[in-house]
């Protein structure tokens, strides 16, 4: 459980995080979304006490991170910036961190295997590829068997196999009842694993919602249906909450508020032949772009460019 209240961080005149408040709950994967420079990394650094908030506060499991007796057991974190000495072996790195908490050697071996680093554990971390470095960072995050796992852009540099591994890992960690908090600037990546979304732009909270609500607010799912008799189908489907649109003279209709299954059943009931029946989920990416457009445009304008057509 992570609880941020009016969290603010200013670097000189620039405000990186601006009065951010949110709660990340256990048992689900929470996505932390925002364009680059929205303050995601800064927020995560404040959660583990690397940066001190200018004002506001953030607690982990009811206490400030630094006040815990075994911080690595509360929060395991993968930061975006490299946090490993390149001259030390993977095992040496994990061992050094484990020693601060009295975590046994057995656990170091476990996370080495879990992250798939078994064959390179004795190699200098400086010789690792981006993907291997990422796996080492995740091994370090899991070292203390933490209740909260926080990963900043974890799929960066991973190959498709690694990306799938991360997704499965995140889902299973949440299924075990842990709090999982994952940042990304790509909606497509997060929507595959996250149930809950915290969306930020320019350091401000834009939305604290679920994937389902975001879709609904953005217009919901629609169904494309083609038929020989669109006028009659319109009448058949009409009802509260149902919206049917289509061009005059076209066989195609866009229907929201009714599932493809119901449309098929009703059409069959009334003997209306259908040529096409397609569910069209609203693109989450579009919903996300819509939400963050102002935040992105601000940066575009600040650098003297215009990005009016970006969304």
């Amino acid at each position, binding site marked *: 459980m992570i609880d941020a209240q009016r969290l603010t961080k200013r670097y000189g005149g620039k405000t990186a995080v601006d009065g951010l408040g949110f709660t990340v709950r256990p048992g689900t994967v929470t996505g932390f979304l925002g364009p680059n420079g929205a303050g995601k990394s800064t927020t995560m650094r404040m959660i583990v006490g690397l940066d001190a908030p200018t004002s506001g506060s953030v607690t982990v499991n009811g206490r400030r991170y630094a006040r815990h007796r075994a911080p690595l057991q509360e929060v395991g974190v993968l930061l975006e910036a490299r946090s490993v000495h390149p001259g030390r072996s993977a095992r040496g790195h994990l061992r050094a961190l484990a020693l601060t908490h*009295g*975590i046994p050697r057995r656990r170091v071996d476990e996370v080495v295997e879990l992250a798939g680093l078994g064959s390179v554990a004795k190699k200098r971390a400086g010789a690792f590829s981006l993907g291997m470095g990422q796996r080492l960072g995740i091994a370090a995050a899991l070292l203390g068997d933490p209740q909260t796992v926080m990963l900043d852009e974890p799929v960066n540099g991973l190959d498709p196999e690694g990306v799938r591994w991360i997704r499965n890992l995140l889902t*299973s960690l949440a299924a075990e009842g842990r709090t999982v908090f994952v940042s990304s600037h790509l909606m497509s990546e997060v929507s595959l694993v996250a149930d809950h979304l915290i969306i930020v732009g320019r350091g401000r909270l834009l939305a604290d919602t679920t994937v389902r609500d975001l879709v609904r607010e953005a217009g919901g799912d629609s169904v494309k249906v083609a038929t020989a008799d669109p006028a009659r189908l319109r009448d058949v489907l009409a009802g509260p909450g149902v919206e049917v649109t289509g061009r005059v003279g076209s066989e195609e209709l866009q229907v929201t508020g009714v599932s493809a299954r119901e449309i098929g059943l009703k059409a069959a009931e009334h003997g209306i032949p259908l040529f096409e029946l397609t569910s069209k989920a609203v693109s989450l990416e579009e919903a996300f772009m819509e939400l963050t457009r102002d935040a992105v445009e601000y940066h575009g304008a600040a650098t003297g460019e215009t990005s009016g057509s970006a969304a």
Partner: protein
Amino acid sequence: MSTLTATHETPETPETAPAGRGRPAYRVTGRRVLSSEWAKLWSLRSTWITLGLGLLFLVAFGVIAASHYRSGPGSGRPAERDFADATAVSLSLFGTNFAQLALGVLGVLVTAGEYATGMIRSTMAAVPRRLPVLWSKAAVYGVVALAVATVGAFAAFLVGSRIVSGTPAAMGLGHAGVVRSLLGAGLYLGLVGVIGSALGALLRSVAGGVSVLVAAFLLVPGLVTLLPSSWQADIDPYLPSHAGQAVFALTHDSTTLSPGAGLLVLLGWTALALGGAAYRLLRSDV
């Protein structure tokens, strides 16, 4: 890509206990942070190389100075000014000037190296109270530098004193003050190591730390000689390098501090550097 296949088989079953039940009671303690810093120090190749260099400088330059003395003033030719009052101790400890660079630089690396590589973020996330890390680094490295330097000082003396035996500089371990001098040299170099690690933590940059170290121990003493002599007498003995020399010099005169006073002054400089490092560590973001 055998590693990838290996992981692919295990993703659904992370070997972690269910959260909240039967979890082991881990805890950060000062002793554990010490052992972590000890493991960190020895798991880097640069540690072995730099300590080896420090030891080599200490012994080799002592032996070279002793040999030079034996073939020069020690053989009865007119004495060079530098060698006029040379002793087996002063000759064997000639290498401290060079060893202090190696040991001081490694001290800077121990702390500033973590900032340069980003390791500091992992370190501070594991020990978010921060100060135990600084004390542990300074203590672990200080003790290691002290041990290496003491071994080096005794080795240099044992070889050097054999080389100059039979000359006016000859001296044995039993000679008054010799053991105190050799232990003093080890103590001085150990404290230079601690000052190096404090400077590294204070400046968070290897280049910056090394520059300030070199300036404090090699450049400032030279600059002070340009000051009016009345000022010189008030400043010169209290410089860290001169206070340190007083700790391990065999003979003392009115322009130098006594060994005890020298050690106090050097400890004062060390405390100042560590205090500055601690202040920055608590005040600034990592």
